[in-house]
């Protein structure tokens, strides 16, 4: 028999809680279930990360297969799946109960309680008693990081932080250690986060479902300054803050809150509220000029941006060979700090010591940056405190200010006037867009129309844009996430990278996805914040940094030429290689007993290792033994002398020798021995 009706190929379906659901190429059953409108609980599932399957909350019952973790099942047509059987509910509840039992239960005093997944799930699943008690003694807080606080007692071992740090940042500063009831997520050797290769991006804190890793709050010192009548407290707000702050205060992500933000901050007691986008405009000019100067001087290959402090720290820790490619520009935050100290006391009529400068940032690494030694003068930091968006929202709530009812107020001049380009700094691609707008105007002698190059438009982790002006081709690469950046580093090292400028942001989507922003927030929220910034930038009356009259005036009256000596002093900085692990005793090789023995150490840090320090160390040990000098020296393999760009580094009685070989080192040791014996 022949069929006259050709049936359409059937869309594959499976049965979910008795209803038929279409398969649409979801990566796993959990995604499909969530798409079908059921919010299955999870701790350890993040669409940005690999599947780990450890939290055992996303359990489902599949007919013929039994109970399975849905995050690890590939959707297949015909499966009969249930999410709500009595068994499943009971298992989930018990899992949460067990987690609560070993979890520190001070929810009322925990900074995360408003956004804690554990608390939310306990409520949702109706856990009303905890039948088990903790057996582990409480672990101490980790307060070694300037940006983050780790409370191991709140960790539920979901591994989200571990995977983010490893998979997206390519760092692996924290990992699982020990086993069974002693299992923990810790930095290497159970040290503090501030004593390992952590770059303070805070993304681990962003994905942590509980309060086990949190941005380090600086609310208290800021409150104290605000309430001190002798102090004048001023603030700068970063572009990304304004499009996210509202999320905590009842508004949608991406909504521009600038006006209400400045109104709220004045109610808290801030004397002036300025815009970091202003110094972003300044950064654009300094950075573009720096690039054009380098290019004219024959500097081949790409230059990297330097506004992301997590990226700068990464470079100092792990890419010492590429430090000369890092722009010497300070970040907009620190440019503001320098200008504030230089100009505001006179402008505001305040004694310098009574001026308190605070930044409001979407970022935890900015807390680290503000504390860097080069940004302090005579013991006073340029920036007294850095608050995250979360912290500021908390202060607004704490003061009882009804944010959504506030009448918007303008920011304070002159650091309020900003171009659209400066505002775009808060989203990935924004720095590139801003640089292009400036460079196009400059290279065309002002003849190029005010175009939007779309650099800040995409959401992919790596993008590029090419623009030709007056036959000069500019090719810019943009990347977020430090693992992605490491891929570009490889290309730069191999000499295959054709970009002129590479913009690197550590956080997903750029600063809008920073760890200081309200949580929880996934890629969709970040994208909406970026969209909010693009809208604000499009509406800004000034297109590029070159159009900002206050910037022009600042150069004329104060800074001189872009890139000139005064600009250099205030707006540029230097970098140095840094050790990954904190101080250590080193690995002992020769342990001489003589009283006046010479102390020698050869660096075994990554960079020196790659330059052959192992050979130097062994060669030196052998030579010393052969010459019968063993009793007269103490020789160790040490971890990083912070001379990674000049290794192998060898120290002899405290003096460092760069580019050392075993022979050179031996000569130095013999010289030191000669001195010691008075020969």
């Amino acid at each position, binding site marked *: 028999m022949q069929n006259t009706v050709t049936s359409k190929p059937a869309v594959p379906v499976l049965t979910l809680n008795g209803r038929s659901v279409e398969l649409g190429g979801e990566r796993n059953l959990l995604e499909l279930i969530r798409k079908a409108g059921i919010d299955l609980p999870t701790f350890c599932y993040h669409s940005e990360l690999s599947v780990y399957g450890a939290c055992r909350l996303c359990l489902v019952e599949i007919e013929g297969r039994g109970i399975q973790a849905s995050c690890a099942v590939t959707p297949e047509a015909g499966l009969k799946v249930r999410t709500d059987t009595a068994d499943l509910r009971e298992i989930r509840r018990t899992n949460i109960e067990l987690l609560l039992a070993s979890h520190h239960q001070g929810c009322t005093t925990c900074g995360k309680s408003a956004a804690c997944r554990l608390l939310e799930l306990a409520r949702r699943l109706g856990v009303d008693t905890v039948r088990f008690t903790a057996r582990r003694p409480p672990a101490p807080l980790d307060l070694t990081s300037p940006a983050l606080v780790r409370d191991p007692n709140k960790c539920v071992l979901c591994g989200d932080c571990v995977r983010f740090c490893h998979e997206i940042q390519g760092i692996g500063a924290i990992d699982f250690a020990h086993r069974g009831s002693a299992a923990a997520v810790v930095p290497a050797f159970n040290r503090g986060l501030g004593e390992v290769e952590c770059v303070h991006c805070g993304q681990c804190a962003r994905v942590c479902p509980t309060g086990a890793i949190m941005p380090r709050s600086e609310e208290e010192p800021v409150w104290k300054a605000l309430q001190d009548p002798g102090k004048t407290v001023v603030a700068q707000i970063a572009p990304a803050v304004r499009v996210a702050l509202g999320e905590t205060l009842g508004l949608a992500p991406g909504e521009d809150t600038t006006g209400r933000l400045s109104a709220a901050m004045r109610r808290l007691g801030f004397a002036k509220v300025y815009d970091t986008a202003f110094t972003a405009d300044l950064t654009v000019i300094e950075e573009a000029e720096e690039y054009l100067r380098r290019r004219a001087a024959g500097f081949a290959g790409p230059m990297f941006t330097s506004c992301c402090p997590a990226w700068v720290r990464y470079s100092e820790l792990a890419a010492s060979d590429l430090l000369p490619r890092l722009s010497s520009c300070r970040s907009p935050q620190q440019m503001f700090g320098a200008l504030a100290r230089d100009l505001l006391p006179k402008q505001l009529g305040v004694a310098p010591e009574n001026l308190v400068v605070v930044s409001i940032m979407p970022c935890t690494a900015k807390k680290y940056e503000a504390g860097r030694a080069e940004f302090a003068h005579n013991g006073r930091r340029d920036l007294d405190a850095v608050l995250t968006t979360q912290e500021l929202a908390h202060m607004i709530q704490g003061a009882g200010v009804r944010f959504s009812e506030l009448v918007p107020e303008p920011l304070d001049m002159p650091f309020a006037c900003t171009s659209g380009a400066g505002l775009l700094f808060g989203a990935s691609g924004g720095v590139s867009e801003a640089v292009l707008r400036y460079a196009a105007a400059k290279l065309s002698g002002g003849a190029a129309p005010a175009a939007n190059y779309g650099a800040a438009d995409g959401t992919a982790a790596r993008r590029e844009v090419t623009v030709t002006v007056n036959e000069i081709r500019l090719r810019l690469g943009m990347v977020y996430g430090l693992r992605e950046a490491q891929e570009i580093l490889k290309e730069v090292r191999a000499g295959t990278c054709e970009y002129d400028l590479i913009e690197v942001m550590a956080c997903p989507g750029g600063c809008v996805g920073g760890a200081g922003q309200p949580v929880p927030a996934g890629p969709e929220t970040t994208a909406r914040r970026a969209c909010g910034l693009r809208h604000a930038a499009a509406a800004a009356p000034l297109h590029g940094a070159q159009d900002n009259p206050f910037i022009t005036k600042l150069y004329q009256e104060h800074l001189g030429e872009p890139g000139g000596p005064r600009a250099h002093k205030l707006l540029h900085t230097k970098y140095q290689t840094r050790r990954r692990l904190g101080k250590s005793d080193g690995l*002992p090789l020769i342990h001489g007993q003589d009283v006046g023995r010479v102390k020698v150490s050869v660096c075994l840090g990554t960079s020196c290792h790659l330059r052959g320090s192992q050979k130097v160390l062994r060669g030196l040990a052998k030579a010393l033994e052969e010459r019968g000098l063993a009793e007269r020296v103490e020789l160790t393999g040490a971890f990083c002398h912070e001379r990674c760009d000049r290794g192998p580094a060898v120290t002899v009685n405290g003096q460092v020798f760069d580019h050392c070989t075993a022979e050179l080192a031996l000569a130095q040791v013999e010289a030191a021995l000669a001195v010691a014996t008075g020969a």
Partner: protein
Amino acid sequence: MSAAATIKGSRQFDAACAILDRFGRNPTRLIPILQALQEEYRYLPGELLAYVATALGVPPARVYGVATFYAHFTLAPRGKYVIRLCDGTACHVKNSIPILEALRQRLGLTAERKTTPDLLFTVETVSCLGACGLAPVVVINDQVHGQVTPEHAVALVEEIIAREKPAAA
């Protein structure tokens, strides 16, 4: 200190480098590498783990995680003679605790301080060595001693000390 002791670290470092080379400095061979290093050093010093991380290009936190996950690895220094005392049910019933106390007293050790400062002895308890017929059992390195009394155990230790003395002098 003897000349050998002065340059012991240097010999060990040579051996460590040879071990790394033997496994091709391959990060996926981390566990056998750590095993071989532990044989050489008798424990895994933190500095050595940091060096392994560097040499293999693996984050130090991962090396630390693996080294602390397996009960076989120890990150605290261990003595040349590891005395393991069974405190399983059979041995416990047959009075293993007085043996433990006698040994600790003789060597100046406690539950927390398991290794003597001269790195000669480590005293640990384990639950069941699978030799319950011989209870109470004491194992010194790989040698099993059955039906031990506190006096007997201390005598074994004295014997070792006497044997090691000339080498240490």
